[in-house]
């Protein structure tokens, strides 16, 4: 507004100067005329009045000079009265001098005026050129433009812009006097109605509107109403020009200029041309300002969008300096604001974190995608684990960098987008860790070994150190597992725990966690804490050497009971334990605890199972006169705690029933079933020696059971008549026994249905005579199914080959055992039972009196 006041003052000065010119010119004319009157008719100097217009011409404009010139001419005309020379040549000559002098002065003044006007117009245009550099807003540009136009080229100026199809008055300016009132009027007015020579028509018709003389009739047309008409009249309009503002082929708005009657200026065609040129420049300035504004708006929007992003975004210049960072980037890189981040040296920003690759190895700065892109290479997104040196907080980030290149292809900027994937990554690590731990825990029953593996899985993902302590039953905690990526450190830690075992009653630490069954986290381990925990100076020294910075101790839980403690220690990494780490460690410990407890129960159960198993087999094979018997029983490993295989030899009326059987399933159920099968077969056979009876009875017992109870049995009734032995073989779903005669082995028996499947079944017996040296080998499918190399099974053929040429029952069993051991690869999967019975000849005298009698009577009855 100060500028505007100064310009108003300059208009005042201009007007005063012009008034002075007229006054001075007129005064000179009057003075010279008076002198001429005083000199009388003899001395005539009236021609000198020409000085009046000449003098005025120096100061005033053409109109002023014309006025003074006319006055001087008038004085010169009437000078003939006092000089009495109306009819003289001299009079006319003098008159001619005055007229021509005044005319010359007028022309000169007009010329000077034109030069002045052109100069000021030029000043306006060049001034506008200065504001077209596009760094100002639309409003600022319009302000500057109108300040240049008024008062140099107009008494008022208004700029309207098209805003969503309608004209919006951007700015107005008016010259003094009455500038303020006029500006208010012009600003508040809506553009005049259509069809009038106004800004609106200039824009709609895209043609300039010139009003050379604004009469009252025109004002009525322009006015919206009476009040508006009054306002328009108050402006004292003389001429107006409204020109569309065109840039890049479209109308931006309109420039309206006007002069008032007060200023004495009038617009003509020439002014219109100037205003059109002016409008071109103004349009350009506004267009640039608009583009700049749009760009600014986009930048502002972009800035707002980027700052609201959860991903951190930074922009680096080619030489590496940061020029942009959003809020998320500032937060991620531990700065209070993006400005603070931008102000920090890049080296400091990078040095605030220790960076690691996904596999845990340290990451060099050159490997960061941003660095690679700056070096002109392509860079894949990189997953980085960053540990803050200040807080020890660990974050996972994925960094993507993109180059912005100039037309020549040189990298000018690098845009880095850094996504914090800590939650996802942690969840992934947790899941993977728990899955691996699950596998490890399921893989073995040796808990010391599995706990060591668990501890090894926990480093370095979860901590730098991991240890597991279990009570040793003698009042101390035993460190059963220690893990660190450096084996030397593991040895050292073991040494510490061996030399200084922790008493179970110890306050704090693992002992307390075990007692309370609650986790403990200490994120700022102080030397005082270590000193307090140490048992003596050497212990304190050792503890200090471990470099413990944070510790997390969680109970190994079996149900609600703590059976041990899992200790996680952060040392060289400097990371802290956060709630999610505690959660994960607790879950890990819960699983490990359950596994340890299961292993313990399992071991306990295995003992029971062994006892049970032994109870289900005959204590020792009975001695059968005339027969040699040998058995092999190989229960599968600890995992298979009660097998379903059994064998038995029962004395029955008229002979012996030997049998081998296999019940389905394992565990207590199988043990119960084995008991039932043995008992049923024995008790039935004692009454009804025919093996078919025993088999049928057992089948009925099994099919009567609610739960499906399957069993296979190979039963052989050994009888002797007149010193000749025979065997009756019945197979119920069981592999037929091998008969080895003359060293040759062949299966003997008919396949009969397994027991417990269908209630109405029948079986067939096969009777063979058994000469001395001949033997029968009964076995369970565990023999056939024994797994060897490449998953091959032992099978019937190998079994037959194994027993070919055997010399005794003991030899048969020994060879089978040896062959199976040789053949077998991996853990034994199934129980294996073999029972070999060899006919050794007629019973020795005196030993089998009772049997002999029984057989004799049987023989009598049957003959």
């Amino acid at each position, binding site marked *: 507004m100060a500028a505007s006041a100064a310009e108003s003052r300059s208009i005042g000065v201009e007007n005063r100067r012009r008034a002075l010119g007229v006054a001075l010119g007129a005064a000179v004319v009057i003075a010279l005329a008076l002198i001429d009157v005083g000199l009388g008719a003899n001395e005539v100097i009236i021609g000198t009045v020409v000085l009046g217009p000449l003098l005025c011409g120096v100061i005033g404009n053409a109109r002023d000079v014309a006025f003074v010139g006319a006055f001087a001419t008038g004085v010169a005309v009437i000078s003939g009265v006092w000089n009495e020379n109306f009819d003289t040549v001299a009079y006319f000559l003098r008159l001619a001098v005055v007229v021509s002098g005044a005319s010359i002065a007028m022309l000169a003044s007009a010329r000077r005026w034109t030069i002045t006007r052109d100069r000021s117009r030029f000043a306006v245009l060049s001034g506008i050129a200065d504001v077209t550099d596009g760094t100002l807003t639309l409003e600022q540009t319009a302000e500057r433009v109108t300040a240049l136009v008024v008062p140099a080229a107009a008494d008022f100026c208004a700029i309207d812009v098209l805003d969503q199809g309608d004209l919006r008055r951007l700015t107005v300016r008016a010259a003094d006097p009455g500038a303020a009132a006029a500006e208010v009027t012009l600003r508040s007015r809506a553009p005049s109605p259509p069809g009038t020579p106004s800004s609106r028509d200039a824009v709609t018709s895209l043609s300039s509107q010139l009003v050379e003389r604004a009469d009252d009739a025109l004002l009525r047309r322009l006015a919206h109403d009476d009040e508006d008409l009054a306002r328009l009249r108050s402006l004292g309009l003389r001429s107006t020009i409204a020109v569309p503002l065109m840039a890049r082929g479209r109308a931006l708005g309109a420039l309206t200029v006007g002069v008032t009657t007060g200023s004495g200026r009038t617009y003509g065609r020439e002014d219109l041309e100037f205003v059109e040129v002016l409008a071109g420049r103004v349009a350009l300035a506004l267009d640039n300002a608009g583009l700049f504004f749009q760009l600014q708006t986009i930048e502002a929007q972009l800035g707002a969008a980027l700052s609201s992003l959860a991903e951190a975004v930074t922009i680096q210049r080619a030489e590496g300096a940061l020029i942009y960072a959003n809020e998320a980037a500032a937060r991620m890189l531990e700065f209070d604001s993006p400005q603070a981040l931008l102000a920090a040296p890049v080296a400091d920003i990078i040095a605030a974190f220790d960076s690691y690759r996904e596999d845990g190895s340290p990451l060099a700065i050159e490997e960061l995608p941003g660095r690679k892109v700056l070096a002109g290479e392509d860079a894949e997104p990189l997953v980085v684990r960053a540990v803050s040196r200040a807080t020890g907080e660990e974050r996972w980030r994925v960094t993507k960098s993109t180059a912005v290149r100039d037309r020549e292809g040189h990298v000018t900027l690098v845009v880095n987008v850094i996504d914090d994937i800590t939650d996802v990554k942690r969840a992934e690590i947790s899941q993977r860790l728990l899955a691996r731990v699950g596998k490890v825990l399921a893989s073995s029953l040796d808990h010391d070994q599995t706990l060591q593996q668990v501890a090894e899985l926990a480093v370095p993902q979860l901590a730098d150190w991991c240890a597991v302590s279990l009570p040793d039953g003698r009042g101390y905690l035993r460190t059963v597992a220690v893990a660190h990526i450096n084996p030397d450190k593991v040895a050292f830690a073991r040494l510490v725990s061996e030399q200084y075992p922790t008493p179970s009653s110890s306050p704090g630490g693992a002992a307390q966690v075990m007692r309370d069954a609650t986790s403990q986290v200490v994120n700022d381990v102080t030397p005082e804490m270590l000193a307090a925990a140490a048992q003596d100076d050497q212990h304190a020294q050792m503890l200090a050497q471990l470099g413990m910075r944070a510790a997390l101790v969680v109970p190994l839980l079996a149900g609600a009971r703590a059976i041990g403690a899992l200790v996680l220690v952060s040392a060289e990494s400097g990371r802290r334990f956060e709630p999610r780490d505690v959660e994960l460690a607790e879950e890990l410990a819960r699983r490990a605890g359950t596994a340890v407890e299961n292993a313990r129960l399992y071991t306990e159960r295995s003992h029971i199972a062994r006892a049970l198993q032994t109870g289900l087999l005959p204590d020792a094979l009975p001695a059968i006169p005339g027969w040699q018997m040998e058995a092999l029983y190989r229960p599968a490993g600890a995992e*298979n705690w009660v097998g379903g295989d059994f064998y038995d030899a029962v004395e029955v009326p008229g002979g012996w029933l030997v049998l081998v059987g*296999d019940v*389905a*399933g*394992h565990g207590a159920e199988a043990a119960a079933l084995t008991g039932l099968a043995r008992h049923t077969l024995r008790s039935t056979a004692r009454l009804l020696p025919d093996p078919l009876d025993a088999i049928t009875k057992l089948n009925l017992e099994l099919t009567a059971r609610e739960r*499906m109870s*399957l069993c*296979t049995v190979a039963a052989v009734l050994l009888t002797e008549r007149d010193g000749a032995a025979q065997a009756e073989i019945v*197979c*119920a*779903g*069981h*592999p*037929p026994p091998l008969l080895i005669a003359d060293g040759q082995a062949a299966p003997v028996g008919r*396949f*009969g*249905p*397994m027991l417990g*499947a*269908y209630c109405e*079944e029948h079986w067939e017996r096969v009777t063979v005579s058994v000469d001395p040296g001949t033997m029968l080998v009964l076995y369970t*499918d565990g023999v056939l*199914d024994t*797994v060897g190399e490449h*998953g091959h*099974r032992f099978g019937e053929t190998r079994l037959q080959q194994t027993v070919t040429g055997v010399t005794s029952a003991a030899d048969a069993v020994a060879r089978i055992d040896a062959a199976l051991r040789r053949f077998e*690869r*991996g853990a034994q*999967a*199934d129980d294996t039972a073999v029972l070999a019975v060899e006919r050794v000849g007629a019973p020795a005298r005196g030993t089998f009196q009772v049997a002999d009698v029984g057989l004799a009577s049987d023989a009598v009855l049957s003959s």
Partner: protein
Amino acid sequence: MLPPDEFSVEVVRHGGAVIVAAHGEIDMATVHELRAACRAADGLLVLDLRAVEFMDTSGLNLVMECQRRADADGAGFAVVRGPALVMRIFEIAGLNHRLRFVDDPAEALGDGRKRS
């Protein structure tokens, strides 16, 4: 022994019928997976043993379980014959004539449709 994870079960629903095809070795370690698949059947169950390389009594027990369940529910059960080694187990168990054996699943399904 082949690792247990080389064992796989493929379940194909065919109308109301379920075809459970086992691949690999059926033994104590793998039979649970097969059992779970078989238990999911609520109509005709076809147990396809063509790709089974080995089967022990665990498999046999499962077959009997399936048969018993089918009998109880009035649903059908058929076994697609496997290799000789597998069939030998059925032979030893004396179940050759007790179970319904078919040469391919379509045979069991065709019959199943006729029945319904």
